[in-house]
């Protein structure tokens, strides 16, 4: 069923400081077109206040209703039809807050009136500060304030529950919200005692676990202490029984008696030991005496035997030596002979060697002498040759150097040329006649021709003839004279007078050079080396040798002996010497053999002699002793005495062995030690017993066994409790999880039908689309062509349109449930293009056939063509409030 608003009057509410009203609202589509700032949105706010805000509240929302700066009671009066019956609600806030509802059940005021409205509209009391549209029920969703519909939002719990109950039959399932919520609250509360919101154990679970841990620790502790006490008991028991044994041992007098007996026998033993010592000394003394006598007899006998054998040995040695001595003498003689022969051979050999050496010296001297004379001859020859060599060298030195020779030759040519030139240019004069008084250039002029080469004055008396030859003649004359001068100077330098001489001198010099070479060769030939006189080759060696010879006399030439003969003699002497040496060695060997044979015999003889002397000395000494004469009888008597002493010693030994004081002392000590140990053990055990008894007394009084039993049972009880608590908490967890799953599953079932209904409207806007609703019935996404688009990602215009369309869909579903619905849109579809706007207006017009639709808008042109009931706000006087 639709809710039909008929009249809305407002006074003192926000910007309506004056009373105003909208009247004449009809079924179907109503359009209120007013400019901005007129208060359209305030009208919607006032409607909500009238229906859903408690009249008595002073919450922030209610406070905001009063016009700014005015302390009035904002008042709203709404008339409407619901389910065919007329209703009126008049509500005043803040000052003189009141409500009055008139409906089919009559008039109601206060809480009763509020309750009637809630019952009618399916809303619940709003306890929030700023107003909660969720509590307004269906109209909270359908009365859409400005800008509220710009995004797609989900319906509140009330709408969801209503829609779900609408769909329950179709889905074949129900939500059962209230029962669920109650059970769920209880389970959550119980769950919270065992689990934290994140599923961690807490509260009772931890308490139970701690109780188990503490109880188990206590039980362990008690058990350990009890075990300790039990140990003490058993230790005490064993200490007591050991003590009993020790006491018994101490009480036993066997040892005491035994010790007494042992002490007595110890005395006897000591006496026996004394006797034994005496007997042993006696026996020792007589034995020693006997031994001495026997020793003396023995030594005498031995010395006698020794003397006899030494005499025999001496005899034998002496006879053997006599035999050997002869051979020895022979050998000595032979050796002496061999030695003298050897000496003779050595002398002969020295003679031969000396002769040979002298012969060889003579031979050498002779050879040197002939070599020296040859050297002297060659030296004389060398002296001649060297003189020749010096002369040739002097000649060689006169050779004019080639350069000087060339210069002379050139000068000669120049002289010749100068002479020719003078002859050609000179003035030839000839004097004939008497030449007296004629002077030429101051000198008497000779008859004959003359060549004048310069100005020449010829005086004839007082006259002078001046002749001047041509100029050329004069220079030729000059050239010649200078050439002649140079030539003369060159010759002077060389000590020559003419060119021919120069040439002759050069020829001689050249010949001398050849001579020098020949002389050098000859010098080399006369100065060879000579080994005999130690002369090296060359003239200098020879000259040096000759100089050194100055002192050497010319020795007299002697006869040269035959060296070969001398050599043969020396060899023969050598052989003789070797033989003599061999003979001597052989003689030495023979002597040594003889001596070797004699040596042992000699020492044997000496040894035998010494032994004999010794034996004789001993016999003499022994026989000289005073006891010697009665020795034999003394020995016999001493032996008898020894035997007697031995018998006595034997007896004493037997007696002493029977009573061993050491063994007896040991036994006494053993008994003493046993008694002492028993005493110590008793003291220790008594201490132990006392200590353990103390422990038992102090610990036993603490009731450890009781405590242990109690603690053990407490631990068991705690474990059982933990078991129960664990089961309980697991149960609650499972139940809670299961409830969650059940809710989710059930919610999911309603999504399909909701989507189906919404799709009817939305498909007209977005043909071929599919819709995706979440479990809380919020449109989440639109699927177009298989592509899912989240609502938040759609264009603002589409989002707004979808928001309006889903509201219409929910309104339809609520209508099915018979809920009083109406649709109010404040300034809707601001982002719609013309086509969409037309489509949306068409859809709204159709919806207006099922429910009252009120559009509040400022856009006159956009809605001008829309058919519907047009209204405006008018100032009025509120009646009777």
């Amino acid at each position, binding site marked *: 069923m639709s809710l039909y608003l008929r009249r809305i009057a407002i006074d003192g509410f926000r910007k309506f400081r004056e009373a105003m009203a909208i009247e004449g609202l009809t079924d179907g589509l109503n359009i209120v077109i007013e400019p901005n700032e007129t208060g359209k949105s305030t009208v919607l706010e006032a409607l909500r206040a009238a229906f859903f805000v408690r009249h008595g509240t002073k919450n922030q929302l209610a406070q905001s209703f009063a016009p700014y700066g005015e302390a009035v009671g904002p008042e709203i009066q709404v008339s409407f039809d619901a389910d065919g019956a007329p209703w009126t609600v008049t509500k005043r806030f803040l000052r003189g807050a009141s409500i009055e509802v008139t409906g089919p059940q009559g008039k109601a005021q206060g809480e009763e009136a509020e309750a009637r409205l809630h019952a009618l509209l399916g809303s619940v009391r709003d306890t929030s500060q700023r107003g909660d549209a969720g509590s307004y029920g269906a109209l909270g969703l359908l009365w859409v304030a400005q800008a509220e519909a710009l995004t797609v939002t989900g319906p509140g719990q009330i709408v969801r529950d209503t829609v779900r109950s609408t769909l*329950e039959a179709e889905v074949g*399932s*129900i*939500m*059962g*919200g209230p*029962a*669920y919520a*109650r*059970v769920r609250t*209880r*389970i959550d509360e119980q769950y919270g005692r065992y689990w934290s919101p994140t599923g961690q154990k807490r509260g009772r679970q931890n308490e139970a676990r701690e109780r188990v841990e503490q109880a188990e620790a206590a039980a362990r502790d008690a058990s350990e202490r*009890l075990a300790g*006490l039990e140990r003490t*008991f058993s230790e*005490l*028991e064993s200490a*007591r029984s050991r003590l009993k044994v020790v006491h018994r041992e101490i009480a036993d007098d066997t040892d005491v008696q035994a010790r007494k007996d042992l002490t007595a026998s110890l005395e006897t033993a000591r006496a026996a030991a004394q006797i034994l010592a005496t007997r042993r000394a006696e026996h020792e003394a007589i034995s020693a005496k006997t031994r001495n006598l026997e020793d003396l007899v023995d030594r005498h006998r031995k010395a006698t035997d020794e003397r006899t054998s030494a005499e025999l040995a001496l005899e034998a040695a002496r006879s053997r030596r006599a035999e050997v001595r002869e051979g020895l003498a022979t050998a000595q003689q032979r050796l002496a002979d061999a030695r003298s022969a050897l000496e003779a051979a050595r002398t002969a050999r020295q003679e031969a060697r000396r002769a040979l050496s002298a012969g060889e010296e003579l031979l050498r001297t002779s050879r040197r002498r002939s070599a020296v004379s040859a050297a002297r001859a060659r030296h004389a020859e060398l002296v001649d040759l060297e003189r020749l060599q010096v002369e040739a060298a002097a000649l060689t030195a006169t050779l004019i150097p080639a350069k000087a020779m060339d210069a002379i030759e050139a000068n000669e040519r120049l002289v010749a040329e100068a002479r020719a030139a003078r002859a050609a240019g000179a003035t030839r004069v000839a004097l004939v006649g008497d030449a007296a008084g004629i002077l030429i250039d101051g000198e008497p002029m000779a008859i004959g021709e003359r060549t004048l080469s310069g100005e020449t004055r010829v005086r004839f008396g007082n006259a002078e003839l001046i002749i001047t030859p041509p100029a050329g003649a004069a220079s030729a004359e000059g050239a010649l004279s200078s050439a002649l001068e140079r030539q003369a100077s060159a010759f002077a330098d060389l000590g020559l007078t003419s060119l021919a001489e120069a040439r002759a001198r050069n020829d001689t010099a050249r010949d001398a050079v050849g001579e020098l070479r020949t002389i050098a060769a000859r010098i080399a030939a006369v100065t060879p080396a000579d080994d005999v006189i130690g002369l090296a080759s060359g003239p200098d060696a020879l000259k040096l040798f000759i100089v050194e010879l100055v002192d050497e006399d010319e020795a007299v030439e002697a006869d040269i002996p035959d060296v070969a003969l001398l050599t043969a003699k020396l060899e023969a002497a050598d052989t003789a010497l070797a033989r003599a040496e061999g003979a001597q060695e052989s003689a030495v060997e023979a002597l040594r053999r003889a001596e070797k044979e004699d040596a042992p015999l000699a020492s044997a003889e000496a040894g035998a002699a010494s032994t004999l002397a010794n034996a004789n000395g001993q016999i003499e000494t022994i026989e000289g002793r005073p006891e010697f004469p009665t020795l034999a009888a003394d020995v016999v008597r001493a032996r008898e005495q020894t035997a007697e002493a031995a018998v006595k010693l034997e007896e004493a030994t037997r007696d002493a062995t029977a009573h061993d004081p050491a063994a007896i002392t040991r036994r006494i000590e053993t008994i003493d030690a046993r008694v002492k140990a028993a005493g110590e053990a008793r003291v220790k055990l008594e201490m132990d017993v006392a200590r*353990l*008894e103390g422990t*038992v*007394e102090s610990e*036993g*009084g*603490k*009731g*450890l*066994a*009781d*405590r*242990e*039993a*109690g*603690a*053990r*049972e*407490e*631990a*068991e*009880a705690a474990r*059982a409790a933990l078991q129960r608590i664990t*089961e*309980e908490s*697991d*149960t*609650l967890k*499972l*139940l809670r999880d*299961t*409830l969650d*799953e*059940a*809710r989710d*599953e*059930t919610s999911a079932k309603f999504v399909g039908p909701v989507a189906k209904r919404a799709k009817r409207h939305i498909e007209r806007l977005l043909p071929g689309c599919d819709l995706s609703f979440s479990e809380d019935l919020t449109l989440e996404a639109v699927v177009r062509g298989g592509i899912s688009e989240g609502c938040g990602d759609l264009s603002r215009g589409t989002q707004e349109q979808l928001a309006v369309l889903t509201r219409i869909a929910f309104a339809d579903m609520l209508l099915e449930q018979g809920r009083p619905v109406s649709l109010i849109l404040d300034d809707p579809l601001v982002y719609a293009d013309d086509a969409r706007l037309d489509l949306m207006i068409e859809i709204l017009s159709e919806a207006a056939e099922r429910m009252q639709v009120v559009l509040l808008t400022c856009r006159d042109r956009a809605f001008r063509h829309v058919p519907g009931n047009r209204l405006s706000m008018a100032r009025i006087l509120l009646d009777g409030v």
Partner: protein
Amino acid sequence: MKLIHTADWQLGKPYGRFEPEVRAALSEARFDAIDAIGREAARHGADHVMVAGDVFDTEGPEDRTIVQAISRMERHACRWWLLPGNHDFARNGGLWDRVRHRAGSCITVLSEAQAHEIEPGIWLLPAPLTHRHNLDDPTELFDTMATPGGRIRIGLAHGSIRDFGTQGETKNQIAPDRARRSTLDYLALGDWHGTLNIDARTWYAGTPETDRFQRDEPGQILLVDIGEGRDPVVTPIRTGRFQWIKRSWTVNDQAGFNAECDQLLGSIDPPSTLLELSLAGITSLTDRVGMLGRLENDVGHRVRYLDVRAADLVGRPSADDLASLAVEGMLGVAAAKLSAAIETGGPDGLIAKRALERLFVEYSREDRA
């Protein structure tokens, strides 16, 4: 002559698995039993009380336990003969030395196997235990005890009867015909916690205050009238305050359960009753919840202590159960899921079973509300 035969006082037993207040009541009741015995002795003219072992629960009780025991005994005119049992065996420096230190002349600790002439011509032959575990028959020593001029010989021992097949605690076994063999006029035995007649002259007195779920009878003592040359006249006397009862019920619906409950509550004294109740059967979940709810909210509060073992009481959700939840939508879905988990079985199945039950409990609670 008349004497009181009792045993197995088990003083100081901790009762650790009980809540503290129950524990305190049970412990106190054991001491109160001493007073009860003393009063009965006086009422019936018995001068001697023979305690056949296990006077104390452990060999090392708290001092308070000892002092309480002694002070309670000394309030009465009779003589108390205490025999060490296997729980409180005799040893040097042990429990009994502590008791002797504090006890007056009216209390005799029989820690030696030595006959006592308690009245002229009346001899008491004790067989004390000296170890926690004894393998020999301690009563064999009876034959070595001299009882000069004995007209009446009374044996006092602790242990199970050989070849008797009881569930006695001790390992030592007493010859079943010990009374005849040792020409006893009466053999007072301890160890078995219920009253038990072996032969005309041999009895177990049982504990005067029951301490475990073993049988329904409350604790008793025996009044024994012994005469020369005749069998003794033995009369059990109730001394126990608490009754420990075990019940196993097979129930299939709430009505049957209620009937059992009502019958039981009518037949017992709930404040002095400790109840171990085992339930078996197959019921609807609603019924199971109802039964456990009654136990928890009603019976459990009436009796001193209630131990319910309901593992064998299978609560299957009935069609009605499931239907009632199904109309609640999501709760129905959750119930179905849990049912499926139960079908799968295993340890998770057990938890699921509990979870389902809890779901019903919480849902039903809403119904009541």
